[in-house]
């Protein structure tokens, strides 16, 4: 007599609701900045405090208001890199730069993670408070890479080369660098709730279905729980939770310590003596929790133009050439009784949270736990069509080398080589349809 509740049929859902109940109808430049609907007054207040802290600039200690910056840092507020809660600009060293460099020696640390470089740690901070020096400056040089379609159309990609100049102390003879562009924040609370078994079920070790796509889950060390956990966040899926992601960004990008990341990014380095006088941890516990809640409760913008024939044809092409093999459209979040908006939601993130070999062109050749130097996590595509608005000028991929969605598609290789080959063979009309579909996300 007891019937098990079943999931709605596909047709029972409104496909515009990319984030399920955590979707918002906003297509302006502030489309990524909305709270999920239906928060209680108290939760709205927590979200608001998190929002203000996210936009808050931090200053050098000692100071009465938001001290803790530095001694070395990449930027002075979260929002400076995550423009309008969206992506960053692929420059380094300016006040609006959103690109940073991870650095390591070859080999692994005691947990299997990247091996820190003495004097530099795991990330290059290219700004410093007065009296200290940036660890190094990042130089970016682009070269032109022409790509031809089957129909003869040529697209020019730009391939970046990264180098470090003006190090504050000598760099080691050899080191590994990996660029990371600040990603958009929407729907992170939903991604956090995708059951681990769902993510693991996407793995196709040995590529048994022979579609060229295998995928790998990155299991990493959580510095807060001191356990090995599934990596979900970060461009190589090297971070287990939003709490750790946010606390590590405060620590590494701004030099602000918290109860999760208790040590300064420059801990043990000579330049630590240039700042003093502030209490540790620099970020009040509740404020870190508020920012965590803020990010968890950022809504996903709804899709647009879904009844447009070109967009619908683009969606068909998207699955025909198997973009959806990694950019998975549908999944269900797990139960979270504290936050119904992200609990048990049918969502369309267009990611599998796995890392995939993306080929030589995108390789950073720097391993990060189980992700090797050619592997990157599948970037969620929800909201990707709004990046132009939220960022001002949109940049795509892990380091912002792609200036258009078309360029981003053309950089795909490795496990995506088949999909890319098929994209190159498409007619101009179908290529444009695919891009129209992406812009509707």
């Amino acid at each position: 007599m007891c019937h098990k509740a079943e999931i709605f049929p596909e047709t029972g859902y409104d496909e515009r609701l990319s984030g399920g109940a955590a979707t918002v109808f906003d297509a302006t430049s502030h489309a990524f900045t909305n709270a999920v609907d239906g928060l209680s007054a108290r939760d709205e207040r927590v979200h608001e405090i998190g929002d203000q802290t996210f936009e808050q600039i931090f200053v050098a200690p000692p100071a009465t208001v938001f001290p803790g910056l530095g001694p070395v840092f990449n930027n002075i507020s979260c929002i400076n890199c995550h423009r309008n809660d969206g992506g960053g600009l692929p420059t380094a060293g300016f006040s609006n730069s959103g690109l940073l460099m991870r650095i390591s020696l070859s080999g692994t640390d005691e947990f299997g993670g990247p091996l820190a470089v003495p004097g530099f740690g795991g990330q290059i901070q290219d700004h410093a408070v007065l009296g200290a020096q940036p660890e190094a400056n990042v130089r970016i040089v682009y070269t032109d890479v022409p790509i031809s379609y089957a129909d003869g159309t040529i697209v020019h990609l730009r391939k970046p080369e990264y180098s470090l100049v003006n190090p504050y102390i000598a760099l080691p003879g050899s080191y590994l660098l990996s660029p990371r562009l600040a990603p958009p924040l929407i729907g992170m609370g939903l991604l956090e709730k995708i059951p681990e078994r769902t993510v693991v079920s996407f793995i196709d070790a040995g590529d048994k279905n022979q579609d060229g796509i295998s995928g790998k889950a990155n299991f990493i060390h959580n510095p807060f729980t001191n356990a090995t956990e599934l990596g979900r966040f970060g461009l190589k899926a090297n971070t287990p939770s939003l709490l750790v992601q946010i606390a590590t960004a405060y620590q590494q990008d701004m030099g602000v310590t918290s109860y999760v990341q208790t040590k300064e990014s420059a801990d043990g380095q000579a330049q630590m003596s240039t700042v003093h006088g502030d209490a540790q941890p620099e970020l009040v516990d509740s404020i870190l929790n508020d920012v965590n809640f803020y990010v968890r409760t950022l809504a996903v913008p709804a899709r647009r133009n879904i009844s447009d024939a070109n967009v619908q044809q683009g969606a068909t092409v998207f699955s025909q050439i198997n973009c959806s093999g990694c950019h998975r459209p549908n999944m269900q979040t797990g139960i979270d009784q504290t936050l119904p908006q992200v609990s048990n939601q049918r969502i369309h993130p267009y990611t599998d949270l796995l890392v995939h070999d993306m080929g030589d062109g995108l390789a950073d050749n720097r391993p990060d736990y189980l992700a090797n130097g050619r592997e990157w996590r599948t970037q969620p595509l929800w909201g990707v069509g709004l990046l132009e608005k939220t960022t001002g000028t949109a940049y795509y991929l892990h380091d912002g080398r792609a200036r258009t969605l078309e360029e981003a598609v053309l950089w795909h290789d490795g496990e995506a080589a088949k999909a890319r080959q098929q994209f190159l063979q498409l007619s101009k009309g179908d290529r444009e349809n695919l891009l129209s579909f992406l812009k509707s996300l």
Partner: protein
Amino acid sequence: MKKNRTVIIACLLSGTLFYACHKAETNPSGIDFPTLEQEVVNDFVSNVALPQYNNLTLAAGGLNAAIVTLNTTPTDVNLAAAQASWKTLRRTWEQCEGFLFGPVEDNDYDPNTDTWPTDYTQMDSLLASSNTLEPTDIQNLPQSLRGYHPIEYTIFGVGGSRTAASLTAREKKYMVSLASDVLNNNVQPLYDDWASAPVHYDNQVLTAGKGSTKFNTRQELYLAIVGAMTDISEEVGNGKMFEPFTAKDSTITESPYSGNTLSDFKDNIVGLQNVYLGLNGGKGIKDLVAAKNKSLDNQIQAQITSAISSFSNITLRYEQAIYDQRTQVQQTMTQLNTLRDLLDDELKNFITTYIKD
């Protein structure tokens, strides 16, 4: 009015391009609605955005000149003149925040000039350092050491205690370069981004839904304009006023050295009002709303007026009022929240209901 609504629903049902469907009906003023939509856009550009940003360049030029004079002739009269110029510039800027979208956010002119609190510790280190403090150096400093508020700190001092004689050579160099950075690296480029190539943002707005690469539909543009109005009422009522009020902390107000904080708030809402009513004899969003829903227009106009006039009940500096006039501050915040809800619910709903192209 009912009939017009049916026409719109018919367009929706047809599922085709909305502007293929003719809405021949006229509103009480005798102009058909899509024409009115475009006129309001035209007047927003030519009577509000462009002149206001042009005023901003003039005000920044005025501050720049006053600071240069103060540098060469550091008298208290010239200091007072620079302080007055600073307040004029702030008034114009805060009013421009009534339409905070486009180049001002895309190209970071807002955070480059209006970041607070100022970083005193870093500022002291900067003044004591060997940094040459040229405008090019200022351009590369963190935003907490650039813009209106470090200038404010330098020419007003803590509690407005600055005297011309107390300005050091390094402080003078810093303020001259800061004022130049505001004018030449931010305010002037902001105006240029709107008025001239290569950005020509005015054209992007004017051609919304007709070839603009920024706004595929006119509805998108209107939602951006109304969104900016909503955001500023939210920011003032729920952020800039609420935070120091609830924390009872006068150090986190916007312009604490000049005591200009309350004017900053009020001018933000005046900026919002300028967008709604239109300026210099041009049409505003009010004309659109009044054409379809006069009662909503009355309600919005009354609420804007009521919010603006409520500021005059706060007679102390805001830094003092958060302790001693809490009832009045609370009343203004309530007015602003009512305004925000009205804009976010009713006006936004009006836009999505009636602007379909």
